[in-house]
């Protein structure tokens, strides 16, 4: 694997899902740091916090759709407003249980979203995501 990422942000409300995602990320040894946000609002707050501290934002965000409070779509709307102020844009990949083609289509129309991967996350899927990210950068 190439150079490690500094930080990956996992956004999901399910503790077990975050546990598995973190495990897979560690297995592929992709990132120096893994951050977890339990919903869209927490993720936005995390990004704002990075901004305030002048710290670089995560390079990769794995985003769930169905979450209480601010869901994945709503996170993306808020992220858009934030994006211009971030030091660099993150690669955002939807990681979701949804098999709804409408969701896939909706994701494809959003510029910031680079991929749509179905849960559960596996090492193979993670490698696919990494390839997506490297392709973007």
């Amino acid at each position, binding site marked *: 694997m190439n150079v490690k990422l500094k930080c990956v942000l996992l956004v999901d*409300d399910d*503790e*077990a899902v975050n*546990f598995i995602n973190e495990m897979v990320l560690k297995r592929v040894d992709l990132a120096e740091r893994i951050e977890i946000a*339990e*919903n869209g609002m927490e993720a936005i707050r995390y990004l704002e916090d990075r901004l305030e501290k002048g710290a670089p934002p995560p390079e990769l965000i794995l985003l769930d759709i169905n979450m*209480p*409070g601010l869901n994945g779509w*709503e996170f993306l709307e808020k992220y858009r407003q934030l994006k211009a102020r971030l030091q660099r844009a993150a690669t955002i990949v939807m990681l979701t249980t949804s098999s709804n083609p409408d969701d896939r289509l909706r994701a494809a129309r959003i510029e910031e979203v680079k991929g749509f991967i179905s849960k559960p996350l596996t090492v193979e899927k993670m490698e696919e995501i990494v390839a997506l990210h490297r392709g973007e950068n």
Partner: protein
Amino acid sequence: MESFSKEAYQELFDAAPDAVIVADIRGKIKMVSSKVEQIFGYPKEELTGRDITFLVPDHFMRALSENILKSGILFDVKEMNRVQDLVARRKDGSEFPVEVSLRPIRIDGKHWITAAIRDVSEKKKMISELKNSLQALERKNRELEQFAYIASHDLQEPLHTINSFVQLLGQEYGGCLEEEAKKYLHFIEKAAGRMSALIHDLLEYSRLGQKAEMSEVDCEEVLQSTLQNIDSLIKSSGAKVEAGPLPHLWANKTMLILLFQNLISNAIKFGKKDVIPEIRIRAEEQKHFWEFAFEDNGIGIEEEQANKIFIIFQRLHSRAEYEGTGIGLAQCRKIVELHGGRIWVKSEAGRGSTFYFTIGKRHK
């Protein structure tokens, strides 16, 4: 006042939106309006002197019972009469549905009958289309409810198996498992438990409204039953529930209790920390319905989130903050809609919420 000329009367007669026929009491046509020419395709002269049944298809004449046509309404009209579901025939032989309004009149001491005939083809077509789509919709709805019911029922089985074996594994092999493995088991157990709760709620939700009998219900009684059901919650939270006078409704009592229960327990559950929950209930009479309001002093809902809360399994907070599957308000909406009403919320984050719903005064 100046009176109209004869021509003017003719014009008025022709201007009537319906095709108008004047016949004697035996049904012989005396005169017809221009609209009759238009919709039947006969020139006026061809109709004058003919029997009015000339414009009705033979097979329909035979099908019409004697007492409606011959002895009854058509030729012995005592008062204004509307005959629906009649069929008329044009000159070219084609048939079309009509509605006929019959009215007896007296001119120069002689009795006549006026028949105002309206072509209702379009109306009939629209009604039948509407009926068809309504039936299709009802069928779809039933299918969907049935589906949710069967699916959730069948999903319970394998889930019980998972639960049983996870428990067995923990009990019999727990000692030889490493911490990490125990963690996995814990996740399985938790997920299975949540799925069980979701399926249970889905089942309840799909059952709502099946065989719901309506009767006159006293909402004061509904409130009393509700408060009894959630007595321990009210006592442990110290919540105060106040209600103004509540009406009698035509409703399903069990469903109303569930509605009240969900709204009150939500108000308590989403109360502010260290503030005693206060819930004020009032009912306001409107022309066709009663409007209820359940006002609380809880944490409120952000405006942009308010439209989501009535959707099944939608939650605004993490499970760690507030338990539950997110079924309560979806149930409320289904109950209100089954009673022909609607439900909505006015709220502001941090400033409490007021849930409103309407229920028709007499809905069947």
